[in-house]
């Protein structure tokens, strides 16, 4: 059989909503980033090479000898109780206590975004998201024809004052959003964390306005410094906050295992949606997690990942300070996988990516994190998926092309600005600014701590 690639044959059959699932120049450029010679700081990959193969073998052996038939069978849509026990442990580690019947085990965290959107959104309904937002959520919202309204952030996460203004404005137009999507800790892509007061206020707003919130928390346990603020779920007590968790960043994204916690009436609808999508989450993957949790101290592995990623984050922050011109600004994440860089607005990062690819280095252009065309002068950098040498070299190369463009712009406008600042002058944000624009430039003195 030779399948037909002739799209015209099928074009008339596609649903209208597939029209918004569009390809773009950026996506075509991203296709080039997968080539082996490219240092890609574009992905969002955890480093699975740190997982011990012996452990994997022991886990597989245990399933084969103890629960072979079960592992090969369908399971309940909501997930196995054994797996829910493991989930309860993970959530307890972040200070949340959840009953097994209040959660559903899903095929990765991504499925939660899909199921929640499927459950709540009719075409044209409003979803509130952060600006920038998780690029992987964009195609989900688009597929369900949601109208996404993005609320700006600063170094303390989503600006709740702006959120309220936005809600007021929508209300005046007779529109009520169905839910607010947020990644409050170590946000993807911005790397910032929502402060405790803002978390409290967000939960209050949700209660006052009777709005659901989807708290997406894939990285909460990957904290490299400081104390964790409370999860929205624990502040809310499970009334308006739905919670998304995943094993992807603390164990493996390949096993595709996540979960959702939601109020029972919502959970029931999500359950129905999941039945239609895939009947149940992989039993094999669920048993692997169970065997792994019994076999090992899972927190030790998370601890080891934290060590590795902290060093990589520090390397990237140092390299940024060394190689990026002073016109660039970036966030300093206390955890997670990403740094968000903002360049002068005369630089278009999609075009810059084309230039960077000539030097075999890649990043995610900021426009991927917005649905409204903003973000064109920003980029997302991932530090978890590359080793320190690659990070240093990758940042050096990107810094070089950014510097080149800043200089060229200076030449073109006749404003010959000094591009390099080699002496450690004050580069911190101005004191007295209690609301810092996102992104906040990394404070130079931090370097000494890291090294």
């Amino acid at each position, binding site marked *: 059989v030779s399948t037909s690639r*002739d799209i015209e044959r099928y074009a008339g059959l596609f649903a209208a909503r597939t029209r918004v699932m569009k390809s773009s120049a950026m996506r075509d450029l991203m296709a080039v980033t997968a080539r082996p010679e490219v240092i890609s700081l574009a992905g969002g990959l955890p480093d699975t090479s740190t997982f011990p193969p012996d452990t994997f073998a022991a886990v597989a052996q245990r399933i084969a000898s103890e629960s072979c038939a079960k592992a090969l069978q369908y399971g309940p849509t909501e997930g196995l109780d054994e797996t829910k026990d493991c989930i309860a442990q993970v959530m307890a580690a972040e200070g949340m206590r959840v009953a097994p019947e209040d959660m559903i085990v899903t095929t990765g965290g991504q499925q939660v975004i899909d199921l929640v959107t499927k459950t709540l959104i009719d075409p044209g309904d409003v979803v509130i998201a952060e600006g920038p937002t998780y690029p992987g959520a964009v195609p989900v919202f688009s597929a369900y024809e949601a109208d996404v309204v993005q609320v700006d952030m600063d170094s303390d996460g989503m600006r709740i004052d702006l959120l309220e203004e936005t809600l007021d404005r929508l209300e005046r137009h007779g529109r009520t959003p169905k839910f607010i999507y947020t990644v409050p800790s170590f946000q993807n892509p911005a790397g910032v964390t929502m402060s405790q007061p803002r978390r409290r206020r967000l939960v209050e707003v949700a209660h006052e306005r009777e709005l659901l919130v989807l708290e997406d928390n894939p990285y909460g346990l990957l904290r490299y410094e400081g104390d964790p603020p409370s999860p929205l779920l624990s502040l809310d007590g499970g009334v308006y906050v739905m919670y998304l968790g995943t094993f992807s960043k603390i164990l493996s994204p390949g096993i595709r295992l996540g979960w959702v916690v939601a109020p029972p009436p919502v959970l029931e609808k999500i359950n129905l949606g999941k039945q239609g999508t895939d009947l149940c989450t992989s039993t094999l993957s669920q048993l692997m997690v169970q065997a792994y949790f019994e076999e090992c101290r899972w927190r030790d592995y998370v601890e080891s990942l934290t060590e590795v990623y902290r060093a990589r984050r520090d390397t990237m922050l140092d390299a940024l300070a060394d190689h990026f011109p002073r016109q660039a600004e970036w966030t300093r994440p206390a955890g997670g996988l990403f740094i968000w860089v903002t360049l002068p607005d005369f630089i278009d990062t999609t075009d810059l990516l084309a230039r960077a690819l000539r030097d075999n280095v890649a990043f995610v252009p900021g426009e991927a994190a917005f649905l409204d065309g903003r973000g064109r002068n920003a980029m997302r950098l991932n530090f978890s998926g590359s080793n320190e040498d690659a990070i240093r070299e990758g940042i050096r190369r990107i810094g070089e092309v950014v510097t080149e463009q800043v200089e060229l712009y200076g030449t*073109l406008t006749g404003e010959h600005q000094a591009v390099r600042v080699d002496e450690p002058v004050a580069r911190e944000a101005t004191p007295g600014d209690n609301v810092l624009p996102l992104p906040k430039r990394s404070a130079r003195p931090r370097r000494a701590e890291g090294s």
Partner: protein
Amino acid sequence: VSRVAVLKGGRSLERQVSLRSGARVEDALERLGHDVVALDVGQDLIVRLREAAPDVAFIAMHGRDGEDGTVQELLEILDIPYTGSGVLACVRATDKVLAKHLMIEAGIPTPEFFAFSETAFRELGAADALPAIEERLEFPIVVKPSSQGSALGIKFARSAADVPAALVAAFSYDSRVLLERYVDGRDLAVSILDGEPLPVVEAVPTGDGFYDFEARYEIGRTEFVCPATLPDGLTEQAQELALRTYELLGCSAFGRVDLMLGADGELTVLEANPIPGLTETSLLPQAAEAAGISFDELVGRIVELALERAPA
């Protein structure tokens, strides 16, 4: 039946488009009964070509390497016949600055332009000449890299304040860029197959804005009218201009020439593409279809032409 190596992908920024062109060509070649070897062009190109020992190479690549004469040169060395234009035509057509200078010399109308290398700005103070250029070309001005296809890196500068950022963007793709007079009018494309112009295609953007990268490859973003409905005599005039451009640059077998029909009724040539897209939304296949040539026939003809040209 021939053994045909389909060269696609590569490192070009138009990799994705090329993969789609290539996949469609492979399908067609298989339906025609050819023995098809698909090659995603990379480090091992020569080794794999020697291994495959094809009778002919079908170059379904766009942009850098595939369309600029690089791969053609390698195939010459390996003595493998290939589809489309030769090295010289590829070099001329890919370099928009060179192509436009040749057009002017040959009396083919093309929008007025000024071209600069990055060095001119960095070392020769060319920025000081920008106000004079802006006055001459009038806003909006089109700023584009000299050698990139697919509208990547093409910006519209609506005022003097937009020009520097537009230049920075264009220099992301090439070390030479051009500032070109914007022609307000209709987007036309004339494809040529074996020295014969095909029906004119008009691209009509459905939204506002211009025919950009997205619009070019997405079904639904742009409507194509073929044959284009043009005032008397203009179809022939467009075809004649396209053919002259194609011949001027030394293209062979097939190609596509993009033109503008200005609001003043004047035709101008923007550029020539030695390897136009062969995807579902591409213009050459549509033009061929309008002339009663199916995609399979089109691909078959292109292969035959390559084999005919090859020394026996």
